[in-house]
């Protein structure tokens, strides 16, 4: 049983999602059954992941050969501390979004919960797989689920945003396949660890082709992660999605970032000879410009959802900076920041939705409108989330940004990282305080007493789950940082992956 643990977090949402299309759960009026089922599935997913995490931290990284086809020929699932950590984050986010959706979003259509499960399955698979083509397949699984989730509930804005999102991602998928064909054609393998062994033995002419493939992959991951020239789709798409969906999407940009970390640390890492660090001259300016454009976007946003979308872009840029420093310490700091920024930006999407539902037609736009009904509750939540995302103590953003700043040790790195991160944090604080002032204090007229728009307990539950996690990862900061450090160490340690998979080096 323990041998099959790495595949469980994928199988649970897959079969659970399928089951939820069948009689005891299908049908418009049986939504209560679906709610109970989906909650159980989310909890099961988290429990399985925690078991996997325990097993990985006790016995080291685990691999699972699907159909028992051994590496490098078969598809390998590889559970190392990094992948398991991200899967746990996905499960947690999925649970919070699902709870939030119980307030009514899930009743706008029959298939909300099954699609949500498929989305979780796709993201989980993308984190766990150690085969580039399988990564493509899981990308497609998570994408087609996200297409359906994005348009769920209907409406002009969603249709328009979805058309753009789908076309862009289909082009991205084509590029992904071009890149895979190029890399397979030169290295003759798709297993990530095996590819990292083969890449250093390429002749000079093959190296050029492999480099082209590697750069194409950067474009693909850059599109998913919303790096500078490819980020235009993000704020609009996320603003159009319903709140629980946007919250779950907060992890999807991180899938792209994870791809960059995995591929360019392992395949094009230190052992790659000529090709090691080939994206280094690109990644620095891209990271810095992404943070700058995100900050400009935050200042210019007309409503809270757009603002949060731009905050996601800033967090991606910051993560890329942590990647660009390319030491295990910086990578570990990046992982801590990744957990924090995913949770808090997801919470902000939900808070924006709750504020919007109490302000009538003004929704969450920064204009003078009617007073919100529960200013104390919503104000407190917004305050906590804003403090955390801007990086003020005592919340997790402070620690996250602090350890990224600490991990920049060379002088030139320090100048860039410190100035960019600090200035962008300052501007974020300004934008957020302006937003909070307008949303909560500048109102006209009395509130309409007739319509009852008080937030439901499900909504409060979903958001609190995410917000409580922020101080928790500060209080338990030491073990979390130790764990991310371990994860970063394992990511940089190629020989461990090679020995787990019993790959033979080409020297033999």
């Amino acid at each position, binding site marked *: 049983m323990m041998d099959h643990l790495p595949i469980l977090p994928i199988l649970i949402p897959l079969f659970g999602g399928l089951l939820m299309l069948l009689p005891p759960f299908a049908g418009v009026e049986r939504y209560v059954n679906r709610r109970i089922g989906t909650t159980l599935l989310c909890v099961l997913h988290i429990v399985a992941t925690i078991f996997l995490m325990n097993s990985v931290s006790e016995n080291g990284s685990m691999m699972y050969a699907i159909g028992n086809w051994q590496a490098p020929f078969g598809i390998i699932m590889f559970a190392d501390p990094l992948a398991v950590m991200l899967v746990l984050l996905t499960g947690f986010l999925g649970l919070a979004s699902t709870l939030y959706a119980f307030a009514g979003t899930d009743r706008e259509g029959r298939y909300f919960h099954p699609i949500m499960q498929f989305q979780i399955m796709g993201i989980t698979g993308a984190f766990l797989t150690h085969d580039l083509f399988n990564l493509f397949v899981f990308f497609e699984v998570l994408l087609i689920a996200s297409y359906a989730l994005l348009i769920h509930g209907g409406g*002009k804005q969603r249709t328009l945003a979805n058309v753009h999102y789908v076309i862009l991602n289909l082009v991205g*998928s084509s590029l992904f396949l071009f890149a895979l064909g190029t890399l397979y054609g030169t290295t003759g393998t798709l297993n990530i660890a095996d590819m990292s062994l083969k890449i250093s033995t390429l002749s000079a002419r093959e190296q050029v082709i492999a480099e082209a493939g590697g750069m194409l992959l950067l474009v693909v991951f850059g599109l998913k992660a919303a790096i500078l020239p490819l980020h235009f789709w993000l704020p609009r798409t996320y603003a159009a999605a319903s709140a629980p969906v946007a919250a779950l999407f907060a992890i999807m940009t991180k899938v792209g970032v994870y791809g960059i970390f995995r591929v360019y640390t392992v395949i094009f890492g230190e052992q790659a000879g000529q090709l090691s660090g080939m994206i280094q001259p690109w990644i620095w300016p891209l990271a810095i410009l992404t943070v700058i454009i995100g900050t400009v976007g935050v200042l210019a946003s007309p409503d809270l959802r757009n603002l949060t979308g731009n905050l996601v872009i800033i967090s991606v840029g910051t993560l890329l900076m942590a990647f660009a420093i390319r030491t295990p310490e910086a990578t570990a700091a990046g992982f801590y920041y990744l957990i924090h920024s995913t949770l808090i930006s997801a919470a902000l999407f939900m808070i924006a939705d709750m504020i919007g539902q109490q302000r009538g037609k003004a929704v969450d736009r920064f204009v003078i409108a009617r007073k919100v009904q529960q200013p104390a509750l919503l104000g407190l939540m917004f305050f906590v989330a804003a403090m955390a995302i801007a990086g003020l103590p005592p919340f997790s953003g402070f620690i996250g940004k602090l350890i990224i700043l600490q991990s920049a040790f060379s002088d030139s790195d320090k100048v860039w990282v410190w100035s960019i991160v600090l200035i962008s944090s300052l501007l974020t604080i300004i934008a957020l305080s302006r937003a909070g002032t307008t949303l909560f204090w500048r109102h006209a007229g009395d509130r309409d007493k007739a319509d009852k728009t008080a937030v439901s307990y499900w909504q409060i539950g979903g958001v609190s789950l995410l917000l409580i996690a922020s101080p928790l990862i500060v209080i338990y900061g030491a073990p979390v940082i130790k764990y991310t450090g371990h994860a970063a160490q394992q990511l940089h340690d190629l020989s461990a992956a090679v020995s787990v998979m019993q790959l033979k080096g080409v020297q033999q």
Partner: protein
Amino acid sequence: METLYVLCVGVMTFSGVFLCLRGRTFPVVLGLMMLGYAVNLFLFSSGRLNLDGAAILGKSEIYADPLPQALVLTAIVIGFAMIAFIVILSMRARADLGNDYVDGKEPPDSSMNSPSRWSSKK
């Protein structure tokens, strides 16, 4: 054979990219299909091109790499599903938005060649 193959992939990619950049959803969908075909051919060639090669051991002098064939099959299936989705989505967008432009609204200078102009004149 290689030259012909390369030309096919190149021309199809070119037309795919060109069509993807058009303003209406129909050409864009066609462009995505073209790109999909080009990608499938390209993936197939990553196992090297050879004639009369069997993918099973002991059946032939020359062997073809079976993996790209499996990859292409997967890519075809996924691509087909995605095209089906985008076709339905663009029909939905046509219904929801009242026009078939990707941006959801007619560009300012489009009245010159839009068919509705001619019909309204009659």
